[in-house]
């Protein structure tokens, strides 16, 4: 299964099990979404449970909050993460705070999906990775799957979760695991073991990271597309790195991270978002706090540059295997 199919399947499973699950967003109904992640759901579950929304992200999230307060479990799509900003107030000031401010009288069990990241020549308005803007907001959970198996299991967890979950889908992974070697042939999911997705209901719990490669020399913290970039860099450099796919950024699996860095004594953090105040900053701070006495080299961050995501210069911007490789080497040389 591709990641798109896995996401569609998660929707299908949940809509089938629970009448309260409703799905809407721009172009999500009849057409099934511009990335086709909701294809066929309207036909199967009817227009009242899967429908097109007006182009108003604040309205999409705002009405979803009202529905969630009613008792539904809305799962809405923001067409691209770059277009979540108009909805940011409803996410931050409302969804994230409702349970706390009403002391549990009202809650907002909704899932907000959005494609993130670059690598598709989408330029600055189809490439952003705004995860740090969510992790700074208490009351939101933030999830980034990196493969079909996790995508389905995590999305089911997100929909079942009683708190608002931001579900970020690395769009460059929709159709295959991408390691940053844009000049090589595209690899389809079918070639990857994590594209084996069980039928029906299963969950991948929120808040638990996955060790994608065990190793002893350096810990690489990554999520989404960067997991594959890290794998490529590690194998190209021939370094015995431990690669952790964070999967959930908040709540974060700090135990797994700290245990790994205490073992390897080195840490490289990789993400596609701009560097300053990116989620890598938090990871760096946490690793430093938890593993100060174990660290043998400075923690490195390999990230997108602090510029808008450019069009023609996409591959100069993207933190590919070469840049990650250089960081690994620097850290190992200490």
């Amino acid at each position, binding site marked *: 299964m591709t990641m798109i199919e896995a996401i569609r399947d998660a929707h299908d499973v949940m809509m089938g099990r629970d009448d309260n699950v409703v799905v809407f967003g721009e172009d999500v109904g009849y057409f099934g979404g511009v990335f086709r992640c909701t294809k066929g759901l309207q036909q199967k579950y009817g227009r009242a449970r899967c429908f097109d929304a007006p182009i108003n992200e604040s309205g999409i999230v705002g009405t979803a909050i009202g529905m969630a307060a*009613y*008792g539904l479990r809305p799962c809405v799509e923001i067409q691209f993460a770059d277009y979540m900003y108009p909805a940011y107030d409803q996410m931050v000031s409302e969804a994230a705070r409702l349970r706390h401010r*009403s002391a549990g009288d009202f809650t907002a069990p909704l899932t907000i999906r959005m494609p993130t990241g670059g690598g598709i020549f989408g330029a600055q308005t189809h490439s952003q990775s705004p995860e740090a803007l969510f992790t700074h907001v208490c009351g939101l959970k933030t999830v980034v799957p990196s493969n079909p198996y996790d995508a389905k299991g995590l999305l089911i967890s997100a929909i079942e979760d009683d708190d608002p979950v931001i579900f970020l889908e690395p769009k460059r992974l929709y159709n295959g695991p991408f390691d940053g070697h844009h000049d090589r042939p595209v690899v389809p999911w079918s070639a990857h073991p994590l594209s084996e997705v069980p039928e029906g209901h299963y969950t991948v719990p929120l808040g638990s990271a996955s060790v994608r490669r065990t190793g002893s020399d350096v810990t690489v913290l990554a999520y989404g597309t960067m997991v594959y970039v890290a794998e490529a860099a590690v194998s190209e450099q021939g370094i015995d790195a431990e690669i952790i796919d964070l999967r959930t950024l908040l709540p974060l699996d700090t135990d797994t991270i700290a245990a790994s860095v205490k073992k390897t004594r080195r840490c490289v953090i990789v993400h596609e978002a701009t560097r300053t105040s990116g989620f890598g900053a938090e990871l760096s701070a946490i690793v430093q706090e938890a593993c100060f006495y174990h660290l043998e080299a400075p923690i490195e961050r390999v990230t997108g540059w602090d510029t808008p995501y450019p069009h023609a210069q996409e591959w100069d911007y993207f933190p590919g295997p070469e840049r990650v490789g250089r960081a690994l080497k620097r850290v190992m040389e200490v």
Partner: protein
Amino acid sequence: MPAHDPLNLHVPEPAFRPGSRPDFSGVTIPKAGTVRKPPVDAAPEDIRDLAYSIIRVLNRVGEAVGPWAGQLSDEELQAALKTMMKVRAYDVRMQMAQRQGKTSFYMQCTGEEAIACAFQMALEKGDMNFPTYRQQGLLIASGYPLVDMMCQIYSNSRDPMKGRQLPVMYSSKAHGFFSISGNLGTQYPQAVGWAMASAIKGDTRVAAGWIGDGSTAESDFHAALVFASTYKAPVVLNIVNNQWAISTFQGIARGGSGTFAARGHGFGIPSLRVDGNDYPAVYAVAKWAVERARRNLGPTLIEYVTYRAAAHSTSDDPSAYRPKEESEAWPLGDPIERLKNHLSVKKLWTEERHTQAMAEVEAEVMAAQKEAESFGTLHTGPKASARDMFVDVFKEMPPHLKRQRQEAGF
């Protein structure tokens, strides 16, 4: 290219500022009873005039007249007056409590009591209001305990909001009162979403959104109208036009439109304008709109014309931006006086009865206050728990919050 005169920026100003004498004699107010009452399934395009008029029931001498009159029994009207009196007494006590340092902040609804109190009576159990901070009347009219409201104001050990929220930010699902947000306008699309959920589930509950004149300028107002219009959500969208948004007069939000109700026309939403200080008129219009929603006929927009007689909040002093006499000069009068007058005309009320009712509501409010204060006030007595601050951020406390709570030592 022809020469043109230079452009200049038009910045609307209110008719009166401190130092000038307010005079509303030029304002046309339709006579009570003169505005027609269409059937609830009237087509929006056939009732556009209702957004440019003012539906009124109580005339100058206190009679209830016209097609919107006669919907309330004598007992209901008497109870209504007492409810409004209770809201005002509550406001007076809480305002004073703030001045006495028992809490940090308070907001009165003086002069606007009829709107929330009458609207609440048009709803059924299970319906849901999405209020702003000036609809305490909804809670009081629904019978929510005054003690609980006060405990919220005091942020004390029995505060249903556990000390977390600014005073007046009540929440009561059981009483159909959605958790108030400090962020203006956000509740409007939420009300629409809640109403859509009722329709999706095939239930019969309806929602009511509330917003102030100033806040209609907020973008979420548009989001709400778009969704309500498209999905014909069973929702009543209320605009309380009390003429002011802190120091800013309603003309800044309204702009070139004659009325706020007219905003509904661009969405094909039936839009009515009503005298907000006229309890029977508010009730009748609310009933009409709620019935539309309940019968799956879709949303209704209602503008209540009223006046914010008090300061915006305890942090505000309106004498800096509007004439002190403006409230008195305001032509729609006081809702309590007007209903009292109506009841007197109907021989259902006397001065003695009024004095007695006043004593009753004041005693009730004071008793509640005493009880509430026994659970603490903001700075003295039992307190909301600090440990509790970490609860309800999520349903289950994640590890990092547990660590932080430990670090905090609570």
